[in-house]
């Protein structure tokens, strides 16, 4: 194969890959769902937690407040907003506390009271049971509420409805003003809107929130311009995070590109070289995004944002190529020779640096967080592509390009850099101090909670807290989750659990609980209750006997007999029957099911305000007879989950670090040299961690990822500052210049991220930028002195 053909094939392959990658990107879905930075959990309990966060009713529920104007105007706006959105397919449910809603719920409960009431059994409908229940109801007729129960009695003489209403205690709801929900001080009317879109469909949620805003604007124009809308809830955080990530990623990409371009333009002073130098980076970005898109079905905005910083690292390869091959080229007699010399003398070092970087990023693939796995895959494919393009494509284009020389910069730096070796004791001292700091601060070094992954707007958070408190719906902390292969088995398991919980409530261990089975009992339970209801004639006969000593005659209770007969024959309730009633919202959200996976869950929320940890342990023990039941403490669970993943990532990172050390030991074949290579990297990592411990607060998993990058990037610098013994050049001016340039671009690109308000990006930026700078400085400080001076450098300019 001729060289020309080989070149054409290489270029053709490269162009094809890049074009395919670009096509693939156009087909890729982009997301900004922060739950990608929650673990993809292996255990069902943790999976459920993540599901709850991603898909649960909470993740789709908007909290809406209407403020300004008069009480009546706000109430009218609340009613109109409700009326406009109630039939909108974008919303599964919308509630404003309207009395009609309560009536509707009561109506439903009343019509199904004999299927719903836990008191319904054969005993209750025996002669004795009827006598006792009706006797009790008559006594209630004679209480101060008698004038109210009076209306229910003829059709519900056994008092099932009152028992049901007691359970659906409306007092736990928000305050009222003008017949709609309001804040306690009545200054805000409250609504709750549940979007139809799933919690991970941020676009759908954004459209739903826009519907609310637009509808409100129209209503406000009709009523009073001083009215205004407050909207919060979990979906707003997701939307806000996405918008912010989108905006910042765009902004930071532009800033990074401008900065890196400026640095390179200053260095090369040649636009064609600059453009050629960007080819490896551009190819890497395209292939990286395409690979993530293919591997994960969607690309996270954070991955793109991280990609802009990665440019600072990938650009290094072309910098090494352009600066160093010129060095060799000038030393030899022609450019072609210079290239082969570069491939011979420098490529192995670049390659070794590449492999250590790949090992570093490979650790992310095992982190268990889809978001971090994306970053890992992106970085690996991006860097590999950039390096391959540098190795195989640039040499084809390179000879045709003019190029600037930055040896002058290198030479100006030579002396100060050489002077820096005097700082070795200082560096060692600082390293020692860093170790001391870390030993003293090790307890609080890592943050062990999940909070702080997503960017949070303080104003939105304040609105959310306010509306949530007024709605009286603080997020529950303790849940019991039961699992079944379908909804029915899940409901049966939940009923088993509630029978245990009833005992615990009686014993005072538990203030109470809410179970979906209160409103939707299992089919088995409904049928059992129907079976317990006597048939019409039978009931009439029993009533005859039961009422002998009571002041009511059976013929006056015909409504009761008819209702019992009707509900005995009625089809059992399904979840779909609840749709359109306010009860649906409470029930459906607690019955997540995945028909495809053959799994259904029932979630019971516990009222545990006064429950001690010891009592929780008793509770945990008490529910063990129900095999699938798991008691979840959402607070500690998510923190424990996070801590576990932090540990996993720590272990994986250490394994990655060990792999890098092993690789260097093998390639460098000299433990001493490897030690010298590792020293600056280790010190850099120590200094960054100590710096964060002293000034930056606690470290998160994301900082750990940043440290991994520091090690991966720093290893490149250390390798160049420790050239292989066979290579005579030592650290020459152009290598120094190229390393300086590479560090500058890396620090610029990651430094920009440090100003992000997206915590994921900020943590990585604030770790990598100072880390890369420290790695460069320390690599210089601990550099092997040049084997001999480079006399041939002096007469070059």
């Amino acid at each position: 194969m001729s060289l020309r053909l080989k070149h054409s094939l290489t270029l053709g392959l490269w162009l094809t890959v890049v074009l395919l990658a670009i096509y693939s990107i156009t087909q890729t879905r982009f997301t900004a769902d922060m739950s990608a930075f929650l673990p993809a959990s292996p255990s069902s309990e943790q999976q459920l937690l993540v599901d709850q966060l991603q898909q649960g009713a909470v993740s789709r529920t908007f909290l809406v407040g209407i403020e300004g104007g008069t009480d009546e105007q706000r109430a009218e706006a609340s009613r109109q907003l409700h009326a406009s959105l109630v039939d909108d397919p974008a919303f599964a449910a919308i509630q404003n506390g309207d009395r009609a809603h309560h009536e509707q719920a009561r109506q439903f409960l009343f019509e199904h009271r004999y299927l719903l009431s836990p008191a319904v059994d054969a005993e209750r409908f025996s002669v004795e049971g009827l006598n006792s229940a009706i006797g009790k109801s008559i006594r209630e007729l004679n209480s101060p509420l008698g004038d109210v129960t009076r209306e229910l009695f003829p059709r519900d003489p056994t008092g099932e409805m009152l028992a049901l209403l007691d359970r659906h205690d409306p007092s736990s709801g928000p305050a009222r003003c003008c017949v709609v929900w309001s804040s306690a001080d009545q200054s805000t009317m409250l609504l709750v809107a549940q979007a139809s879109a799933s919690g991970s469909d941020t676009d759908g949620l954004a459209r739903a929130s826009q519907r609310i805003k637009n509808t409100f604007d129209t209503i406000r124009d009709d009523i009073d311009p001083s009215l205004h809308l407050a909207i919060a809830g979990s979906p707003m955080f997701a939307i806000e995070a996405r918008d912010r990530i989108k905006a910042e990623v765009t902004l930071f990409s532009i800033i990074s590109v401008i900065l890196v371009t400026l640095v390179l333009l200053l260095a090369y002073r040649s636009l064609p070289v600059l453009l050629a130098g960007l080819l490896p980076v551009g190819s890497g970005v395209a292939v990286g995004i395409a690979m993530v898109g293919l591997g994960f079905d969607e690309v996270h905005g954070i991955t793109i944002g991280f990609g802009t910083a990665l440019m600072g690292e990938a650009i290094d390869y072309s910098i090494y190529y352009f600066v160093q091959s010129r060095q060799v080229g000038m030393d030899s007699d022609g450019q072609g020779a210079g290239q082969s010399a570069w491939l011979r003398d420098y490529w192995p070092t670049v390659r070794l640096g590449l492999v250590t970087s790949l090992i570093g990023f490979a650790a992310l693939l095992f982190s268990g967080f889809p978001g971090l796995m994306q970053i890992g895959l992106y970085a690996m494919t991006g860097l590999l592509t950039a390096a391959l393009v540098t190795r195989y494509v640039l040499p084809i284009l390179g000879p045709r390009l003019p190029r600037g020389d930055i040896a002058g910069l290198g030479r100006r730096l030579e002396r100060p850099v050489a002077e820096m070796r005097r700082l070795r004791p200082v560096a060692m001292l600082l390293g020692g101090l860093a170790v001391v700091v870390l030993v003293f601060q090790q307890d609080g070094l890592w943050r062990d909670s999940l909070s702080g992954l997503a960017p949070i707007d303080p104003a939105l958070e304040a609105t959310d807290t306010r509306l949530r408190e007024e709605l009286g719906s603080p997020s529950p902390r303790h849940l019991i989750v039961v699992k079944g292969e379908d909804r029915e088995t899940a409901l049966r398991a939940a009923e088993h659990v509630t029978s245990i919980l009833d005992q615990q409530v009686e014993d005072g261990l538990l203030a109470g609980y809410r179970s979906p089975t209160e409103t939707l009992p299992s089919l088995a339970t409904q049928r059992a209750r129907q079976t317990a209801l006597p048939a019409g004639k039978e009931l009439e006969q029993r009533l005859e006997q039961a009422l002998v000593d009571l002041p009511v005659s059976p013929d006056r209770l015909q409504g009761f007999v008819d209702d019992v007969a009707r509900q005995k024959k009625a089809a059992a309730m399904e979840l779909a029957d609840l749709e359109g009633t306010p009860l649906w919202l409470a029930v459906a959200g607690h019955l997540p099911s995945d028909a495809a996976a053959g799994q259904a869950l029932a979630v019971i929320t516990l009222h545990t305000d006064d429950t001690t940890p010891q009592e929780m342990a008793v509770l945990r023990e008490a529910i063990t007879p129900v095999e699938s039941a798991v008691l979840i403490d959402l607070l500690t669970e998510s923190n424990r989950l996070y801590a576990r993943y932090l540990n996993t990532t720590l272990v994986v990172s250490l394994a990655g670090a060990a792999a890098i050390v092993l690789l260097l030991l093998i390639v460098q074949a000299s433990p001493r040299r490897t030690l010298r290579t590792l020293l600056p990297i280790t010190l850099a990592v120590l200094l960054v961690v100590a710096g964060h411990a002293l000034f930056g607060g606690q470290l998160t998993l994301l900082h750990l990822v940043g440290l991994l990058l520091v090690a991966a990037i720093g290893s490149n610098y250390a390798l160049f500052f420790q050239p292989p013994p066979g290579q005579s050049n030592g650290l020459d001016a152009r290598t120094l210049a190229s390393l300086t340039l590479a560090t500058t671009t890396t620090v610029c690109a990651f430094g920009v991220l440090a100003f992000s308000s997206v915590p994921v990006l900020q943590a990585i930026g604030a770790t990598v930028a100072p880390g890369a700078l420290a790695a460069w400085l320390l690599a210089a400080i601990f550099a092997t002195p040049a084997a001999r001076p480079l006399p041939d450098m002096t007469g070059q300019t």
Partner: protein
Amino acid sequence: MILPLPTYAIDIEELAAALAERGADSTAYEQTRYLGILDEPLESSGRLSFEPPDRLVQEQREPEARILTLDGEQLTFEADGRRRVVQLEDSPEGAALADSLRGILNGRIDVLSEDYELVLNERPDDGWRLHLLPLRGELADRIRRIEVIGQIDAGLAIVERLTLEFANGDRSVMRLDQHREDEPDHEPASP
């Protein structure tokens, strides 16, 4: 419609003022309910207390201890050691009755006249009879009328009997003891 004529000793504003003049108040009551569905009337008794501006407590002592408190817009019912809280707006039946009762006892004729047509009649010896006839359909569906009978004594209105007549013919009659809070519940034995 019967309007109070000028020749009557009191008019409706005077009655309102005389009712409002009562201030904090606590009286024993006996209540009898005549329900169509039951063969015999139900008897109960207890104390009815009012604290300005808007707290009304009906404390039933016989046959079973029950306490119904209307405080502002919140209705609380205590029975067998359990407390149930209901917002007035959530319970139209309870609301109408408790609100009317309170309106009568604190003389808020202005509130009552939003929901009822008020008809005042004079009875002998400073006595009066007030009829409340529901104006709105939903209230009229439940309540046929409320009758309050009392006396004026030294500028204070005393409520003696309160009768609720429901649309289906059920009746609830509450008889209030005239003794004031600061007096003993029963007549002192004659010397």
